């Protein structure tokens, strides 16, 4: 079975190539490259990735404009049909702005852009994206963001934790995120948003391979579905 994936590029996306490269290296098949102004996604996609960057120059709020672009209406419809959607960094911001994930990403508490490898704790191992990791495993994945401070009200945070929807947590203080949350899943488990960049940890030359299991597990699970 050929793995059919798509990477959405918005004006200002800058991690779309890295994401496409990761998907191609792990699955053996290059993704469709989809431009933000396209009205429709390719048919029968197995996987959609929203890459990092600064879509629309972060105007108004990070991810706010992208979330209302034509292609996102198709992505939202696909996500609601159960198509797996991974949003990394700006992609996570687009997912919260579009309402596919709860909460919001605020300016980092320390005001600084944070760009370094961070240790994450894997909290959920039941999802398509996280099933290749062990519960409590520590993985090293880089972050590069200014607005990564995850915020949601206490009730929402309790619900996310209670339903096992916190996928990853920072093992150290990074940006002021509520309960050190680095990545969250939607209720159905087919949408993951995370600030760290797993696509930047695919091959040893990148400094580590801890991101590879995320893509491998998703691709394996989809192939056997």
């Amino acid at each position: 079975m050929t793995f059919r994936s798509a990477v959405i590029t918005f004006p200002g996306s800058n991690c779309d190539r890295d994401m496409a490269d990761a998907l191609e290296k792990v699955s053996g098949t290059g993704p469709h490259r989809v431009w933000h102004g396209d009205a429709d996604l390719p048919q029968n996609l197995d996987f959609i990735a929203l890459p990092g960057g600064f879509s629309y120059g972060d105007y108004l709020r990070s991810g706010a404009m992208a979330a209302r672009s034509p292609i996102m209406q198709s992505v939202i419809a696909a996500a609601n049909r159960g198509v797996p959607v991974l949003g990394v960094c700006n992609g996570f911001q687009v997912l919260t702005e579009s309402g596919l994930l709860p909460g919001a990403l605020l300016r980092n508490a320390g005001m600084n852009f944070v760009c370094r490898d961070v240790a994450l704790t894997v909290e959920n191992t039941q999802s398509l994206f996280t099933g290749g990791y062990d519960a409590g495993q520590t993985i090293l994945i880089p972050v590069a963001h200014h607005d990564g401070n995850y915020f949601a009200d206490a009730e929402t945070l309790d619900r996310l934790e209670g339903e096992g929807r916190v996928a990853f947590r920072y093992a150290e203080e990074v940006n002021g995120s509520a309960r050190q949350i680095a990545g969250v899943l939607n209720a159905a488990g087919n949408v993951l948003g995370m600030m760290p960049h797993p696509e930047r940890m695919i091959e040893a030359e990148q400094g580590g391979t801890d991101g590879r299991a995320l893509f491998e597990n998703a691709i394996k699970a989809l192939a056997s579905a």
Partner: protein
Amino acid sequence: MKVRVFVSLKNGVLDPQGRAIHHAIEGLGIHGVNDVRAGKMIELDVDDTVTDEQLETMCRQLLANMVIENYRIERLAA
């Protein structure tokens, strides 16, 4: 008609930008400022056909993120 939309962070949402501004004000040697919260103001020039309900929709669906922000609409006399 000119319309101004003021968007501000909800109480309890950390505002590191406001905190940095506060710090800079203290750097000016001016004391007595107790707190600073930064927001944004968006000015729109709208036809009379634009309804109050449409303005509210703009604010709720785009101009403000209701998870973290509040908004206030101010209509200016032409």
